[in-house]
């Protein structure tokens, strides 16, 4: 394995520990918004779809790439907006 791959593996392992630490002791009231927020964050997959689309050169790749960017955008935009709406409900009203 080359050094880049090894470095990526280091990063993966460290991120696993960080993810576990971040979620510890979250009150159950916030489970749903937290899940929804995490859902929006994995929308980062859109970056990959933009790269694929930006390098596509035949019709089939173009169509599938377009679809990928579209679905990724749904994940990102929908995810963040839904989370925001949920959290709005938690605001203390005076």
């Amino acid at each position, binding site marked *: 394995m080359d050094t880049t791959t090894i470095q990526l593996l280091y990063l993966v392992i460290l991120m696993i520990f960080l993810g576990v630490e971040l979620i510890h002791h979250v009150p159950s009231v916030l489970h749903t918004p937290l*899940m929804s927020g995490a859902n929006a964050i994995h929308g980062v997959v859109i*970056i990959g779809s933009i790269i694929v689309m930006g390098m596509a050169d035949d019709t089939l790749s173009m169509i599938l790439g377009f679809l990928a960017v579209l*679905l990724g955008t749904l994940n990102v935009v929908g995810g963040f907006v839904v*989370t925001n709406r949920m959290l709005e409900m938690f605001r203390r009203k005076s």
Partner: protein
Amino acid sequence: MDATLPILYLVASVTFIIGLKMLGSPKTARPGNLIAAVGMGIAIAGTIFLYKGHTGEHLHNLGWIFGALVIGSVIGWLMAMRVKMTAMPQMVSFFNGMGGACAALISLLEYKAVGGEALGIGNGLATVAGLLIGSVSFSGSMIAFGKLEEKIGDIRFSGQQIVNNAILLAAIVLAGLIATGNITDFSAIILLAGVALVFGVLFVFPIGGADMPVVISLLNSFTGVAAACGGFIYHNMVMLIGGILVGSAGSILTIVMCRSMNRSLTNVLFSNFGGTTAVAATGEKSQGSVREVTCSDAAVMMSYAKQVVIVPGYGLAVAQAQHACHQLEMELEAKGVTVKYAVHPVAGRMPGHMNVLLAEADVDYDKLVEMDEINPEFPQTDVALVVGANDVVNPAAKTDPSSPIYGMPILDVENARQVIVMKRSMRAGYAGIENELFFRPNTAMLFGDAKSSMTNLVTEVKAL
């Protein structure tokens, strides 16, 4: 080497970490979400304008990319803004499925562009894993969506577990052969996608609707891992960090959710709520007589009570009775009755579901009491008003080891002097089991739609 894009990715990664951290506390959750969203915007813009391929060329097809971004944003925004608060869980599931499908398409296109032989084992593994996990996440999320919309029931057949395992095994073997370059035909990877989609469907089919939050949370972490596979393929740090972070945090969240129901993940995924025998057994035993109460009687009981505890459940959400419920609370308070809400950690279809709903109706946050705090108060409570909740107040969880929900902590409403249960019919709860609470001498049933019953109650209480 131009370091601008990697630095933008680093900034985005940090916003994801800070955002997730802030989502864990009620005070900071909202800004946390916004910070992560800003980071996402930075990563997307940076990629479009600064990304360079191996040969140093910028991305083309920018018109198409912007087109997809704009259409996706408009649709996503409209869907997210229009969805009712009660339908939030299935909305999350839907968006999660979109992310999974996106990851699967990336793998498919990458395989098509690079070709089977040239991938190499590392990228080969990441590509097939992204396709496999992304496809399962997509089809599984769609089934979970359908179940929560109550368009799809629980589908079980004998030997289901064996069939599922066989399909999964077939998918893994096929994926292995493709990743190692033993099969290089493009149709094979299409077949793999197909098998993975079928597995996702069959995997979620038998799981009870009440367990969908756990399933969605699990599939959420799946999509995270699928995104990370994409990061591995392109050596893209922000995808890798964002993906793994969600994969890991999502797994922990899944386990925490199971724990709050006092069950294990295996139990949730594979027990199918203990089959039909347990249902028959408890059903047989509890056949007693049920006492009905009229709205005016219930209104009298509550008006002259010292303390009323309202136990909201999914029925409240479906009937959209939260505003009427808040009105009843105010009318009772005006008569000097103390009103509290007892919120079970898994009441509704998702943890925190009831809090969101009641907050929407302007119910004071301090009136929502968590299970451990309210349980000792039930013996001093005159009336416990159960609004469309069932499994979370089923005493069988404490007394009947054969019950599928045995061991789940519940709200001890049966200790209140009088229990009034608002329910549409005598139908069993989402877990599909009888509730002996309804047959207890201190329980009275108020049949009907939660919203109209609640409105009638308000009128009756006002008139007193």
